[in-house]
């Protein structure tokens, strides 16, 4: 059996449906799952099933598009599958991995007061993250990069690491909720994601509208069947980046926005209930006092409180703050 470390393009290599395991993919997937479980065990924590499921699905997504056959087809034969790999790395695996990472584990791996933690904070501040993501997006889709790095297993691995790393950095401020780590709030979050989706149209447009194949390795790859030429493949890749990437991203933007709206609504409802409860409690407390008071009343007391006003210095009420 032919074995390799990572998928790479081999121009002139005839495609066969003979399984070629990529050891690096198995090792990375195993390391990701193993590190997660081991960290829980060492910390004496119980695995949260929902978070662990998200983490595992993230790893599974990475594995599926990196292992044979999708990894090899995407790197050496079809630009469409190459872009599918990018879309899955960026819009499926990265957000799943990030949302499956418990806060305490993040603190353990990247303590806030450590160099690692500070580096993470610097990289994931939203302007830096936006720049890093787009530099990697553009840089790794330039023909010279693709044709040079993807014909080499370590080069191809490096490109995939860049894609995942940039995606994790980019998603970080949008998905993580820790304010200390620079999480951004709605509606800036939606704008942040939307701005990236717009920038992504640029390389997608190059792919879709270029009259010539941009990448030599796909143009010179032995065809799996006749009639599907590299230009059609490239156009499909551009559409894939635009439509699938765009839809996935916009779906996520919509989901985040809806979640934020629901949370706001819920917070409003809770605040209103608490305010009503306090008002009722005050009214109840004042009722016997007002019954004892003279009919003219104390102008500094009851009417204000009864109208729901806060006593000066009430820490729960935003109006008093």
């Amino acid at each position, binding site marked *: 059996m032919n074995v390799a470390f990572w998928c790479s393009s*081999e121009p002139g290599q*005839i495609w066969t449906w003979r399984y070629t395991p990529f050891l690096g993919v198995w*090792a990375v997937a195993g390391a990701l799952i193993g590190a997660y479980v081991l960290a829980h065990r060492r910390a004496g924590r119980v695995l949260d099933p929902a978070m662990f499921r998200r983490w595992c699905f993230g790893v599974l997504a990475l594995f599926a598009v990196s292992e044979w056959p999708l990894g090899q087809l995407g790197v050496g034969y079809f630009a469409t599958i190459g872009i599918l790999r990018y879309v899955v790395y960026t819009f499926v695996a990265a957000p799943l991995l990030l949302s499956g990472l418990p806060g305490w584990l993040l603190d353990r791996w990247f303590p806030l007061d450590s160099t690692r933690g500070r580096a993470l904070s610097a990289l994931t501040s939203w302007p830096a993250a936006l720049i890093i993501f787009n530099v990697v997006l553009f840089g790794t889709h330039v023909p010279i990069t693709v044709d040079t790095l993807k014909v080499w297993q370590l080069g191809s691995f490096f490109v995939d690491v860049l894609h995942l790393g940039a995606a994790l950095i980019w998603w970080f401020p949008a998905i993580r909720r820790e304010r200390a780590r620079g999480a951004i709030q709605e509606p800036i979050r939606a704008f942040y994601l939307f701005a990236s989706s717009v920038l992504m149209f640029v390389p997608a447009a190059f792919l879709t509208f270029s009259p010539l194949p941009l*990448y*030599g390795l796909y143009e010179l*790859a032995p065809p799996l069947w*006749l009639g599907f030429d590299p230009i059609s493949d490239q156009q499909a890749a551009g559409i894939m980046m635009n439509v699938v990437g765009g839809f996935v991203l916009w779906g996520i933007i919509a989901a985040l926005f809806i979640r934020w709206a629901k949370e706001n609504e819920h917070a409003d409802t809770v605040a209103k209930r608490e305010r009503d409860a306090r008002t009722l409690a005050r009214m109840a407390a004042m009722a016997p006092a007002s019954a004892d008071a003279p009919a003219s009343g104390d102008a500094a007391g009851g009417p204000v409180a009864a109208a729901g006003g806060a006593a000066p210095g009430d820490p729960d009420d935003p109006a008093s703050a």
Partner: protein
Amino acid sequence: MTRRSVGILAVLLAVLTACDPASTTSIAAQGLQRGPDGWHGLPLEVERSLPDVTLLDTEDEPFPLVDELTGTPTLLFFGYTSCPDICPVHLAAIASAMESSGTSYLDVDVVFVSVDPERDTPERIDDYLANFSARMIGLHEDLDVVGEALAALDLPGPIVEGPDPRGEGDLIGHPAQVIVFDADGEARRTYPFGARRSDWIGDLPRIVEEYS
């Protein structure tokens, strides 16, 4: 075994498997570089003319190369229809470049000569070329005649390389370059495997202009 030695071992394993010779290639994906003369195709150092042999077209009519192809620049390529890599890539690039550059098949003949007479029937050659352009000329003959044409051009004859990994008979080794002849039947340029559409688009108008 310490954690560090496990790490070193993993890196070594990665490097070793990444250096698997099967993963390296001598074919540059960047295509042909433009030469000092402005052409992408490589100039031929020795003089060669169209082989003086008669092949058969896909209607089994005699096709004397010299008589039929003199008067128009010609792109000549030897291949076979079951070829999994070089032939379809070359022919697709040429067909696409002809269309993109607005080059007419009346101005340049594109000729495909089969080196696999056993499998390549006239119908099969026709069907195969129709995947790229029905205006390409498909030729065939017995192997000794085709071998004569190859020898006249100093090209190696076809050899059986072993079973096709896709399970479609045998792979046949054949010359991987396209040779360009001028209207007088003189070989002028060669395009090895790796020539891209952009290379052909750059050169086709010059082939029409300078070699007609």
